[in-house]
């Protein structure tokens, strides 16, 4: 029964003082405000020269207590709170909460809603991957890919803006349907975009993946073996890079993923190169999915249950998980029959993907840490919630 509560200061003071010659160890703050920390993620690095001896991630700089707010907000309003967590896959987050509620009350939705939801989930995945590719290029030092990634994301955002009404926090998928029906020119513009993006992904390959400097900086860096990946609870591209073909779109087959032919992309060694390459290939897979779906969207109503009907989940526990661009997002609801949830918890993919870095990046250099962090593709508001 040994419980010892520690604080950060106690950890910071056990430096290795014995070494009198050679470079001494010292602490450095890769602080909350750092160009490559993708938000307010702070690492305290114990460095010796440029080699990292230990990493202590420190979180909480953007902890808004979404789960505490969730307890005093009705079910329908919690859906739009999830936009603010992982803002690069906000539609997929809305879908997770709506799906939990629909499963609990076994509300049925027609085929049209499911296909629109799948199309928009895949659009959101492409948006987040092009954005990730741009930031990955900038983290490695090349500034131009950032603008190419953003340019391709911008064309897609304008298409989404026409249907969903907003660019980043869409709040588009509600329990029981979708907010609006798709715009008349949506199908035409999406087909144009697919023809536009395919050669762009080849250009991405030429600019970054074939580049020798990138290959040298990502190969065999930050190796996460299969057992470690599983025990570190990482999901999504990080887990698939280590060779585990776990993709909820295939296993759980929600939406219309079972009617669509696409392949799960896995890596072999689980190093930064596999994680990089998987996301580039996933963009192509998402394009295939959209292409197969966009032609035959079945007719039907876009909102099955009236919006003002009160949602009261019966007493008990409900859980459903969905595959976002970064991993498995699980929504756990404990309800006591009232209008707002008794306890709602979001299993955030970024939170669990983050911790494998403490084991991966030990013994590597600072620029390797930057590469690993940007291949893990972390979104810090989703880590802190």
């Amino acid at each position, binding site marked *: 029964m040994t*419980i010892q509560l520690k604080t950060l200061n106690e950890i910071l003071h056990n430096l290795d003082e014995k070494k009198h010659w050679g470079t001494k160890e010292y602490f450095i703050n890769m602080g909350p405000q750092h160009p490559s920390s993708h938000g307010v993620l702070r690492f305290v690095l114990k460095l010796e020269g440029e080699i990292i001896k230990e990493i202590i991630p420190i979180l*909480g700089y953007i902890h808004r207590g979404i789960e505490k707010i969730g307890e005093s907000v009705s079910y329908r309003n919690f859906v739009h709170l999830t936009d603010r967590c992982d803002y690069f896959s906000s539609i997929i987050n809305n879908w997770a909460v709506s799906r939990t509620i629909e499963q609990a009350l076994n509300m049925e939705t027609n085929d049209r809603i499911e296909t629109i939801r799948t199309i928009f989930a895949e659009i959101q995945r492409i948006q987040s991957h092009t954005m990730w590719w741009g930031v990955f290029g900038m983290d490695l030092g090349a500034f131009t890919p950032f603008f190419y990634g953003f340019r391709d994301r911008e064309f897609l955002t304008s298409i989404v803006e026409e249907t969903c009404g907003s660019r980043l926090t869409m709040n588009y998928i509600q329990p029981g349907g979708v907010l609006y029906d798709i715009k008349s020119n949506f199908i035409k513009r999406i087909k144009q975009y697919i023809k536009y993006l395919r050669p762009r992904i080849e250009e991405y390959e030429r600019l970054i993946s074939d580049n020798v400097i990138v290959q040298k900086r990502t190969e065999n860096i930050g190796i996460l073996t299969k057992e*470690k990946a599983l025990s570190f*609870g990482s999901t999504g591209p990080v887990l698939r890079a280590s060779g585990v073909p*776990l993709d909820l779109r295939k296993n759980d087959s929600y939406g219309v993923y079972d009617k669509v032919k696409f392949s799960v992309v896995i890596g072999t060694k689980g190093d930064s190169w596999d994680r990089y390459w998987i996301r580039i290939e996933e963009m192509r897979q998402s394009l295939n999915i959209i292409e197969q779906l966009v032609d035959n969207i079945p007719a039907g109503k876009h909102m099955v249950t009236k919006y003002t009907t009160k949602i009261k989940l019966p007493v008990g*526990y*409900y859980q459903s998980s969905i595959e976002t661009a970064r991993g498995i997002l699980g929504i756990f609801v404990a309800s006591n029959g009232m209008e707002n949830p008794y306890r709602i918890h979001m299993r955030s993919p970024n*939170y669990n993907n983050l911790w494998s870095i403490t084991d991966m990046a030990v013994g590597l250099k600072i620029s390797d840490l930057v590469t690993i962090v940007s291949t893990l593709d972390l979104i810090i508001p989703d880590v802190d919630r």
Partner: protein
Amino acid sequence: MIISILKDAIYLKYGDFVLEKSEISLVKEVIIKQSKFLEFMQLVKDDKDLKFDILLDHTAVDYINENVFHLVYHLYSSIYNHQVIILVEVPRDKPVISTLCSIWRIAEWQEREVFDLFGILYNNHPDLRRIFLEDDWVGFPLRKNYKDNFMLEK
């Protein structure tokens, strides 16, 4: 993933670990005795036809009127693609349970988050400290009786 068959398999194999059969709730929880919890988790992970190798999620629910915490463990098996939710009841005044760091590495940080927001202690946890809030924060926010001077009462 047929949850009900999985629950019966667990009841059959590990009958004495199970506290009470939760027939009331709809989906998939299995409530486990607090005493033999660590042993049960190790067995479930290594069991050849269950093989729960991912601890997807760990959180807690605060039942203030029954004066008890429900600890929720959501296990997922990447080989058979089935999942189960394990519940453990812990008394509210002495919330102590053994840590799962030795079985799944991620448990270390999921437990730190639950300690930070609920105040549940884990014995022989390697590095038990607050994760989101500052170290000198008073109180545990997600408890139902948490009072704070800048909270807006509805």
